[in-house]
C-alpha cells in the first residue's frame, strides 16, 4: 500500500502515518523524528562552539549554557542517535531476515510514539521555564539542587521515551528469534541483523537500571522522597552507578548497529564477502557482554578505591580486543576486493581512521591512574565525539545514503553526498582533534567560558571553525534530500548493483507485505548466492498463498499521548496547582483506556488474497 500513498491527499497520508503499524513506515517516522532532533541537537552544538570560540564570551549566559550542553547531550543520545539507528533497524532488519514485518507491529508503533512524545515533552522545557541543566548524566546532588522544572522534564521525558526504546528492543529480539525465513539460520544472518539482535539484548538489560534511577529521582524531586539526599541518609553515588550501568551499554547500543551498517557497506562495495564472518559475530557478542562489565570506568575519580579501579581498568582494556578484531576484518574485507568509492563507502572508509582514533584514546582512558588526568576534561569530550560522531553519526550518514533507495525508491545525489562528506569529515577532525590537547593542557569539560592567559584561546577558535564546516555539511545534505525528493527518479530492486542480502532482492520501496512468497535462504549473503548462480531473484520457500496482515491502529498514538499529558500533571503537582492532579488522572485514563480498548476489541487483521497478489506480478513485484 505504501506505493499508493503518494496518490493520497495530505490528510490521508498523515492519518496513514499516525495509525501505521508497517515497519517500513515506522522506520520513516523514526528517520524524520530522529533527523529533526539531530538538527536541534546540532544547533545546540553550534551555540556551544560560538560561546567557546573566544575567552570570556557572553553569547549565552552561564545558566543557559548549562541548559544547552545538557540538552545537546540528551537530545543527541536519546532523541537523535537512538531513533536514527532504530530507523535503519526497522527499515532493514525485517527485510534482511525475510520477514513480512516485526513480531509485534502494534508494539512497534507504540514504541515510536512513546519515544516521540517523550522527546517532545523534553524539548518543551525550552518554552516552559527552562531546560534541564544538570548535564546529560544528571548527577544526583546537582540535579536535586537544580531549581525550576528543568530536571523534571528530563526525568519524565526520558522515562516515557525510555519505555518506547525498551519495548522496541524486545520487539526486535522476538522478531529475529521467531521470524527468520526458511534456511536463515543464526549463522547466515547478515551482520546488521546480528548487531540489531545484540543491541536489542543490551537494551533489554540496560534500560531497566535507567528506569530505576529515573523513578528514584522522580520520587525525590516530585514526591518528597530522599533516595539521593545525603543529609537524610540517601546516597548520590548510587545514582552514578545506576546511570552508568545503563550509560555504558548505551554507547554500545549506539555503536553496534553502526558496526552493522559498515559491515554491510564494506562487502557490498568491495564485491567481497565479509572477512571472518564468524569472528565478527563473536566479537559483536563479546563487546555486548563486556559492555556491562566496565561501567565504573566512568567513575574512576569518584573514589571507589584502587581494587575497583584496577579491575574496571583491565576489563575496559579487554574491550579493545574484539573491537580490534572488527577493524582488521573490515580492512581484510576490502583487501583483494574491487572497491568502488560511492558516498556510503566514503563514510565507511573515513570511519576506520576516525573510529580508530576514538578507540585508541579509549584504551588510554582505560588506564585508571592516567584517567585521573583525562577525566572530565576536553580529552574525554574529544574521545567520545570521535567514537560517537566518527562511529555512529558516520554510520547514520552512510546508512542514509545506502538505504535511501530501499526506503524511498530513489537515490540521493552522489556528488552532493560527497560534498557533504568532505565538509563534515574535515569539520569533524578540525573540531575535535584539537580538543584532546585542550584537555591535556588543563581545560575541564562543561565550562561555559574560560579566562584568557591559560593557553586555550587559539585551540578553541580552531575547534569552533570546525563546527561551522560540520554545519555546512549537514545543510548540503538537507538540500540533497529536498532535490532528490522533488526529482524522485525511481530505481529498481538492487540500485547499487552489488547488493548481497535479502532486502536488495525485492522492489524499492518494497510492497507493504515485503515478500509475496517467503524466500529460501541457501547461505550467507543469500541474494548474492542466487545472483552468482545466474538467477534473477530468490527461490520461494512456499507456494503463493493468502498473506495475513495486521490492521492499522490509532491506539498506539493515544497511549503515548496519555502519558505525555499525565507527565505535565505529575510535574506541576509540585507547585500545588489545582489542575495538576486532574490532568495527571485524565492522562493516565487516556493511556489505560486505550490499553483496555486494545484488550477487549478483537482485531484479527486482514488477509491479502492470492488473486490480488498475482495481479501485483504485472508491476514487477517478485518474491
Amino acid at each position: 500500500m505504501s506505493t499508493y500513498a503518494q496518490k493520497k491527499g495530505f490528510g490521508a497520508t498523515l492519518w496513514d502515518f499516525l495509525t501505521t503499524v508497517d515497519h517500513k513506515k515506522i522506520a520513516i517516522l523514526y528517520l524524520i523524528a530522529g533527523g529533526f532532533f539531530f538538527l536541534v541537537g546540532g544547533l545546540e552544538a553550534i551555540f556551544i562552539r560560538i560561546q567557546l570560540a573566544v575567552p570570556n564570551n557572553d553569547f549565552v549566559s552561564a545558566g543557559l549554557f548549562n541548559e544547552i550542553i545538557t540538552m545537546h547531550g540528551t537530545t543527541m543520545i536519546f532523541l537523535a542517535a537512538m531513533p536514527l539507528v532504530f530507523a535503519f533497524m526497522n527499515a532493514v532488519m525485517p527485510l534482511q531476515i525475510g520477514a513480512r514485518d516485526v513480531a509485534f507491529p502494534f508494539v512497534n508503533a507504540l514504541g515510536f510514539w512513546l519515544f516521540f512524545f517523550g522527546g517532545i515533552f523534553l524539548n518543551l522545557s525550552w518554552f516552559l521555564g527552562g531546560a534541564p541543566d544538570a548535564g546529560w548524566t544528571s548527577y544526583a546532588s546537582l540535579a536535586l539542587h537544580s531549581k525550576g522544572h528543568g530536571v523534571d522534564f528530563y526525568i519524565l521525558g526520558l522515562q516515557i521515551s525510555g519505555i518506547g526504546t525498551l519495548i522496541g528492543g524486545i520487539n526486535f529480539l522476538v522478531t529475529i528469534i521467531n521470524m527468520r525465513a526458511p534456511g536463515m539460520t543464526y549463522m547466515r544472518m547478515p551482520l546488521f541483523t546480528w548487531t540489531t539482535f545484540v543491541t536489542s539484548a543490551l537494551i533489554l538489560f540496560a534500560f531497566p537500571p535507567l528506569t530505576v534511577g529515573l523513578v528514584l529521582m522522580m520520587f525525590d524531586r516530585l514526591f518528597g522522597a530522599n533516595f539521593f539526599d545525603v543529609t537524610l541518609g540517601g546516597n548520590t553515588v548510587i545514582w552514578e552507578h545506576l546511570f552508568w550501568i545503563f550509560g555504558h551499554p548505551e554507547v554500545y547500543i549506539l555503536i553496534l548497529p553502526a558496526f552493522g551498517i559498515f559491515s554491510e557497506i564494506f562487502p557490498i562495495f568491495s564485491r567481497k564477502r565479509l572477512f571472518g564472518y564468524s569472528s565478527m559475530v563473536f566479537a559483536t557478542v563479546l563487546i555486548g557482554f563486556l559492555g556491562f562489565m566496565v561501567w565504573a570506568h566512568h567513575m574512576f575519580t569518584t573514589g571507589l578505591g584502587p581494587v575497583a579501579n584496577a579491575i574496571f581498568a583491565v576489563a575496559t582494556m579487554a574491550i579493545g580486543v574484539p573491537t580490534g578484531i572488527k577493524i582488521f576484518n573490515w580492512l581484510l574485507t576490502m583487501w583483494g576486493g574491487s572497491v568502488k568509492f560511492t558516498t556510503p563507502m566514503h563514510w565507511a572508509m573515513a570511519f576506520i581512521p576516525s573510529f580508530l582514533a576514538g578507540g585508541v584514546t579509549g584504551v588510554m582512558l582505560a588506564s585508571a591512574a592516567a584517567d585521573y588526568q583525562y577525566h572530565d576534561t576536553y580529552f574525554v569530550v574529544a574521545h567520545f565525539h570521535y567514537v560517537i560522531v566518527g562511529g555512529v553519526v558516520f554510520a547514520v550518514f552512510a546508512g542514509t545514503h545506502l538505504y535511501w533507495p530501499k526506503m524511498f525508491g530513489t537515490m540521493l545525489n552522489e556528488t552532493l553526498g560527497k560534498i557533504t562528506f568532505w565538509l563534515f569529515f574535515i569539520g569533524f577532525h578540525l573540531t575535535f582533534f584539537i580538543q584532546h590537547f585542550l584537555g591535556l593542557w588543563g581545560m575541564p569539560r562543561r565550562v561555559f567560558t574560560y579566562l584568557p592567559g591559560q593557553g586555550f584561546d587559539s585551540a578553541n577558535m580552531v575547534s569552533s571553525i570546525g563546527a561551522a564546516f560540520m554545519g555546512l555539511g549537514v545543510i548540503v545534505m538537507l538540500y540533497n534530500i529536498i532535490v532528490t525528493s522533488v526529482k524522485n527518479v525511481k530505481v529498481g530492486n538492487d540500485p547499487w548493483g552489488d547488493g548481497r542480502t535479502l532486502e536488495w532482492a525485492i522492489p524499492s520501496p518494497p510492497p507493504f507485505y515485503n515478500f509475496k512468497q517467503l524466500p529460501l535462504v541457501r547461505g550467507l549473503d543469500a541474494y548474492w548466492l542466487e545472483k552468482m548462480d545466474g538467477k534473477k531473484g530468490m527461490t520461494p520457500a512456499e507456494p503463493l498463498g493468502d498473506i495475513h496482515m495486521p490492521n492499522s491502529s490509532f491506539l498506539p498514538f493515544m497511549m503515548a499521548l496519555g502519558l505525555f499529558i499525565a507527565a505535565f500533571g505529575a510535574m506541576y503537582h509540585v507547585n500545588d496547582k489545582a489542575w495538576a492532579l486532574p490532568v495527571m488522572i485524565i492522562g493516565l485514563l487516556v493511556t489505560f483506556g486505550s490499553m483496555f480498548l486494545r484488550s477487549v476489541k478483537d482485531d484479527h487483521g486482514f488477509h491479502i488474497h492470492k488473486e490480488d497478489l498475482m495481479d501485483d506480478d504485472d508491476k514487477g513485484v517478485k518474491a
Partner: protein
Amino acid sequence: MKRLAKWRLISLFSILALVLSGCGEPYLSTLKPAGEVAKMQYDLMKLSTLIMVGVIIVVAIIFILILVRFKRKDDRIPKQVEGSHKLEIIWTVVPILLLLILAVPTVAATFKLADVSPMDKKNTKAIVINVRSHLYWWDFEYPGQKIVTSQDLVVPTNEKVYFNLKSTDVKHSFWIPAVGGKLDTNTDNINKFWLEFDDKQANEAGNLFYGKCAELCGPSHALMDFKVKAISRDKFDDWVASMQNVKEPAKAQGTVAAQGQEIFNQSCIGCHAVTPSNKMPETARLAPNLSDFGNRTRVAGVLDHNKEELKNWIRNPETYKPGNMMTGKYPEMSEEQLNALSEYLMGLKVQK
C-alpha cells in the same frame, strides 16, 4: 581518495607541530608534570600513546595499500574469501599482549596513587589538608596546624601532601592539572589521596599552580578556580606560624580601613571569618576565610587581585559568578563604604 591521503599527511604534520610547540602552560598543563603523581601519570600517557601509535601505523599501512591497490577498475568479481584463522589469531593475540604491557603499570600506579597509609597513622608528621568544596569556592583546613584558609591553597614542596576531600553542597572535583590527577569531592563520603609538588618545576611555574573544579556543579562551574602556592618547607612553616599567630581579628591600619572593618563586622562577619583558627565546625564555615585575603592572587578565584575588582565583586557578585551564595546576603553598599571595605580587606595579610 588521493585527497584523503594528502589530508592525512597535513594532519600528521600539524600533530607534529603541536607536539613540538605546545605542551601548554607550566602552571596548568598535564604535559608539564610538576610532581611525582603527575609524572607517573605522564609516563602512563606516554606509554599508552606509544603502543597506540604502533597500532595506528599498522592500520594506516593496510588502509593506504587498500586505497592504492584495490580501487575498482573492471567488472570482475573478486574471490570470496571466508577468513583466515592464522590472521585472526594474530590480531587477537597481539593486542592482548600490547594491552598487558599497558595493564601492568596501570594497576601498579593505581594502587600506588591510592596509598594514603601515612596520613592515617597516629602522630603523623605528614601534612594533611581537609578540602571542602562549596558552590564555587574552596575551603582548606590544616587539622594538624589548626588553621583554615580558602581559595589559595598553600603547600610545601618536595614532600607528600595528603588530602581529605568532601563537598558540602553538590559534587565537585578537585584538580591541580600540573601536579596530579583529580579526585571528586563527594557529598557522601571523604575521599583521600596524595600529591607531591616538585620544587624546581614549581619555581618554573612561578610557585603558583592553577587548580580547577572538574565536575559540573552549576552555572559558575567554569569559574570555580583556585590557586596553589607551592613553597619550600621553611617558607611554609613560616606561613603556618604567622597564621597561627593571628588569634583574633587583626586591627585595621588607618582610618579608612578602620571604617571598613566596622562595615565588615556589621555586614560580612556572619559568614566570613578573619581568624585562621578552625574552632568553627566545617559546616558553619559558610564563606571563604579572609584572614590572609590581602595575599591572595585573585578576587573570588577569577578576578584580578586589586581594589577595583574587589569593589566590583562586592557591588554585584552575580555578574561575575552566577548562582553564587553571596548575592543578596548583605545590604547594598555606597561607593564610600565599598572603598573602606576594600581598603580593609586588602590590608588583611598574615605576612607583610
